[in-house]
């Protein structure tokens, strides 16, 4: 079977000693930074991204990045459970019941349940990606520029719908991101736009610098706000292994969460966040004693964690088949691929088979490493939580400065870090989420290019372009999602869902 040949190729690529080694380093570093309170997976990856540039082989560097990703995610869950300080909204759900379990002296089982649930979800979702990738790519290869344009619009609209807070603000953030993504030379005419005669900006803003500023620096600033009043209380770990009763209770939620997450992860625009919320709501509905939720329910940890991880995996599908990132983390992956000379999209699977399947296999390996590595090491990560924040952030800032500068030895990239750090922090204070901006930034120039080419192909007739069946369907779907998000009833429900995380 072709599938097994492909997977075999993938595992052969991913399990060379070098690649396994870098995956391991990635998982360790990802957990190390991800476990720091208040620093989410996106910020972690943004900070560690520069480290992967010095690796010559793009396969190895992407595998290391995948390792960082899983480590960061797991690190985030650890912090959520132990100190009730989720780094980002997807682990906010885990914090609800995870922290309650920890307070009752069951932090160990909560961490183990999160890890085991994630591993199960990861295994299933990896298989799903492997099975679906080829047929979806065959389909995607038939797409013309107008379909790609429509899908990008859909992805951006989903990002808006799934952002917490005001819809209009999220929309404005996407639009601002698109404009910022256009800075630099125009691919079609060669004109340099919005660069204010600064030669260093002719290539546009450096993606890593933007991400580090927007997520890393802005996040650090936010953590410095109330440092005088904050003291993290860390729960005791206690017994690590789940009891028989826990195993029984987690089985159903894990399976349901995995299926739900796999499905939602494919949506462009932020499936992982939606998945954990949806799974939590679902478990609460189907539970025999819903009152347990919020008091340390096993299902409240197992379900969302599995859903989150499954979605994280299947969100590689839109990335690998269409080149459209499903969330900011995938946007970072795209940035990394482009810098490594790999253009994400359907052609990767055919032109660079070992990279494609190696990446899929490394997802599973990354997951496995998490379970065997992080459960025994949990004591070490907890120690790290006791290191005061004021020691950590100067270290993080120094690493960021070195990392960003070493990408192309361009001092303007460091000014970009500071500029976007300030912008990100101010917008964050004004209740605008940075994630839609980053997605807009990544897709900006491709959005324009696809639109312009489609219009030329359609002889300047917008109707001819829009009325192509797939384009029309996708654009209509985007419109429906947008309208639905703005409807008062949905808006109220949406606010409720996001309030639950507080």
């Amino acid at each position, binding site marked *: 079977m072709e599938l097994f040949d492909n997977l075999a190729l993938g595992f052969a690529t991913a399990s060379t000693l070098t690649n396994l080694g870098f995956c391991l380093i990635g998982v360790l570093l990802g957990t190390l930074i991800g476990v720091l309170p208040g620093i989410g997976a996106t910020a972690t990856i943004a900070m560690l991204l520069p480290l992967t540039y010095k690796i010559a082989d793009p396969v190895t560097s992407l595998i290391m990045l995948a390792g960082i990703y899983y480590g960061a995610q797991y690190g985030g869950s650890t912090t959520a459970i132990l100190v009730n300080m989720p780094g980002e909204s997807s682990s906010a759900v885990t914090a609800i019941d995870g922290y309650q379990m920890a307070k009752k002296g069951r932090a160990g089982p909560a961490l183990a349940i999160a890890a085991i649930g994630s591993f199960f979800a990861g295994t299933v979702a990896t298989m799903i990606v492997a099975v679906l990738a080829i047929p979806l790519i065959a389909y995607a290869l038939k797409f013309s520029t107008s379909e790609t344009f429509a899908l990008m619009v859909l992805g951006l609209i989903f990002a808006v719908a799934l952002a917490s807070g005001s819809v209009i603000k999220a929309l404005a953030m996407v639009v601002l991101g698109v*404009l910022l993504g256009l800075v630099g030379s125009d691919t079609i005419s060669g004109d340099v*736009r919005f660069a204010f005669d600064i030669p260093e900006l002719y290539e546009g803003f450096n993606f890593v610098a933007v991400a580090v500023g927007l997520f890393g620096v802005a996040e650090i600033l936010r953590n410095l706000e*109330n440092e005088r009043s904050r003291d993290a209380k860390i729960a005791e770990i206690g017994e690590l292994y789940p009891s028989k009763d826990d195993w029984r209770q987690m089985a159903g939620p894990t399976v349901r969460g995995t299926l739900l997450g796999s499905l939602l992860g494919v949506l462009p625009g932020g499936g992982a966040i939606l998945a954990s919320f949806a799974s939590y709501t679902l478990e609460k509905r189907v539970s025999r004693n819903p009152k347990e939720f919020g008091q340390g329910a096993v299902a409240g940890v197992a379900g969302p964690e599995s859903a989150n991880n499954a979605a994280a995996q299947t969100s590689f599908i839109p990335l690998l088949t269409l080149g459209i990132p499903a969330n900011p983390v995938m946007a970072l992956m795209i940035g990394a691929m482009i810098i490594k000379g790999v253009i994400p999209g359907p052609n990767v699977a055919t032109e660079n088979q070992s990279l494609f399947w190696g990446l899929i296999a490394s997802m599973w390996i990354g997951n496995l490493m998490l379970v065997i590595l992080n459960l025994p090491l949990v004591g070490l990560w907890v120690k790290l939580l006791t290191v005061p924040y*004021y020691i950590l*952030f*100067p270290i993080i*800032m120094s690493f960021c400065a070195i990392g960003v500068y070493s990408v192309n030895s361009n001092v303007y990239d*460091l*000014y970009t870090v500071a500029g976007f750090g300030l912008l990100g922090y101010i917008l964050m204070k004004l209740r605008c989420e940075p994630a839609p901006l980053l997605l807009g930034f990544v897709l900006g120039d491709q959005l324009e290019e696809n639109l312009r080419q489609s219009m030329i192909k359609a002889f300047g007739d917008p109707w001819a372009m829009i009325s192509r069946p797939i384009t029309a369907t996708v654009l209509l779907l985007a419109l429906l999602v947008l309208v639905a998000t703005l409807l008062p009833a949905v808006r109220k429900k949406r606010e409720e869902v996001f309030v639950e995380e507080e």
Partner: protein
Amino acid sequence: MEKSRPDIPNLACGAIFIVFGILFAWQSLQHDLGIALKMGPGYFPLVVSGILIVLGAVIAAQSFRDEGEPIGEFAWRGMIFILASPIFFALTVRGLGFVASIFFTALFASFASYRMTWLRALILAVAVTAFTTVVFVLGLGLPFRLTGPWLGQ
């Protein structure tokens, strides 16, 4: 419900988007607009800037209607020291060389926290300098010069 005073954060937020929109629109007009069939480099950004201005205006208008949540205090001290540290590194890494530049960058960033003392900051900066020099420059071979021309070399 009408109220007399606008919600300042939301008003500011709308204003920021409008300013960005105007800036990009003005810049777009410096380029060839083209026509819908063959869009010039100015066409798409001009349209998108227009959308941004409209969205900014809506947010600003809503600030007169809805009461927003308070935004809490700003991390002023953090902003000064944290934002300045990558700029300091950028300005000095070639002149001072890696070792001195990263030492002062780390030292500078340390003071973003109210809890930092001189002694702690010095120890931390020395540790960061030693670690990054050994791991990043000597170990990973990142392209930095350890000392720069400003130090008389």
